């Protein structure tokens, strides 16, 4: 059997796959950021039942494989609700929740690192809890959290490749399709790898720039 050559169509397939991977990453990372830091704030203010519930749930998510979570959502949930889920929906749900779990623990550490004394000052001056988070806790926690968050982002970008196993046509799935058609695995997977690398490297560079800016601003604080 003759190997099929690469065509312009293959480039389009890879580009589309890359778009899906990046979109899935960006969307789920954003949702994870919001949910995870929200949960961390709830824990910080010791909201009784809710805090414990969230903590336990997120602890479970952090300490189990993403692939298992993905299967649980994609195969397990439909069996329970007698309603199929689309692969993209299942992937989005799983990755958002998984990201939230990691963000939560980073955000908790960041919030805990903010000095108690200034928080008391802000309270004594009458700031509400929301104002406290927005003006005192948030900005400083972010300075502590930015480095681990950038690391997490790079990792979560790679983790999106798992969604190919439930049929989402992301970059990895596109590579898989291409590989089956061309039967040139080395060239295909090298190309896919380079694309992931380029995306991750860009993310790291952007993250580092953001971190440097935050740190430059925070330099006089000795944070």
């Amino acid at each position, binding site marked *: 059997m003759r190997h099929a050559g690469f065509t312009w169509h293959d480039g389009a397939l890879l580009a589309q796959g890359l778009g899906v991977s990046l979109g899935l990453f960006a969307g789920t990372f954003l949702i994870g950021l919001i949910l995870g830091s929200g949960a961390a704030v709830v824990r910080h203010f010791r909201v009784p039942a809710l805090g414990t519930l969230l903590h336990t749930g997120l602890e479970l998510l952090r300490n189990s494989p993403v692939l298992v979570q993905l299967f649980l959502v994609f195969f397990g949930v439909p069996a329970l609700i007698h309603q199929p889920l689309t692969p993209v929906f299942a992937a989005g749900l799983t990755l958002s929740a998984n990201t939230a779990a990691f963000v939560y623990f980073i955000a908790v550490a960041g919030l805990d690192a903010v*000095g108690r*004394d*200034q928080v*008391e*000052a*802000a*309270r*004594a*001056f*009458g*700031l*509400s809890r929301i*104002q406290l988070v927005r*003006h*005192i806790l948030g*900005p*400083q926690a972010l*300075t502590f959290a930015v480095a681990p968050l950038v690391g997490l982002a790079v990792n979560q970008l790679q983790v999106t490749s798992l969604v190919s196993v439930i049929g989402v046509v992301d970059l990895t799935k596109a590579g898989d399709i291409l590989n089956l058609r061309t039967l040139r695995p080395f060239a295909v997977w090298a190309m896919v790898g380079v694309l992931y690398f380029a995306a991750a490297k860009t993310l790291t560079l952007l993250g580092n720039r953001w971190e440097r800016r935050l740190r430059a*601003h*925070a330099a*006089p*604080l*000795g*944070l």
Partner: protein
Amino acid sequence: MIAVEGVVKRFGAHTVLGGVSLTVAPGEVVTILGSSGSGKSTLIRCINGLETLDGGRVTVDGLDVADPRQLAQARRLSATVFQLFNLYPHMTVLRNITLAPELVLRRPKNEVEAQARALLASVGLAGKADSYPGQLSGGQRQRVGICRALAMNPRYLLLDEVTSALDPEMTAEVLAILARLATQGTTMLFVTHEVEFARRISTRIVFLDQGRLIVDLPTDQFFAADGGLAHPRIRQFLSKMAPSSTVAGAPVSEILA
């Protein structure tokens, strides 16, 4: 008026305040003296709502600080200066001062900034508005702490050992500012170990001993042989404090001149 009525505060089995009553009327400068661990900071923290009470009542102009909504109102009336400054390290000096007036009192930004700059100038920090707390000396930080409190236009100023983290020279800087505030009629509740200074600026002195207020007297009576000095605990306290009651070897009166 700040009214503290029979306040009880416990940490676990340890009763830190065992039924303390105290009032501070407008125009008064009331100093709380007492040895370390007697509950002075805790009392201040019960007034600004940083501690919850285990008994008794604290009201600020009739607002009960145990009630969250009344506490929010009460916190607009009093402002605290902290021992360790407790500035917001990620904000400029100016922002440290304007934050609460803008967010809590909802006063216009330009008006608050103008006031903040005027306050900074009045404590000799006109050039430091855009610095960060970490770039200032301790004395400068505490002067910012005082400006931050004054920018709230508080009826009551609560000061908890605001000079005890400062060296003598910086202490003198800060005490001079407080003396000026006292002569301007600012109402203050003042915790300090600077006995000589307290004697100069206070209208009343109260003595806290192991969570109980054992004496509450006008200043001159507190230092009278048949007044506060009649109490052995107070005599003992004052004799221990005497050497540190002057700043850098000079009587406070000279520093303030």
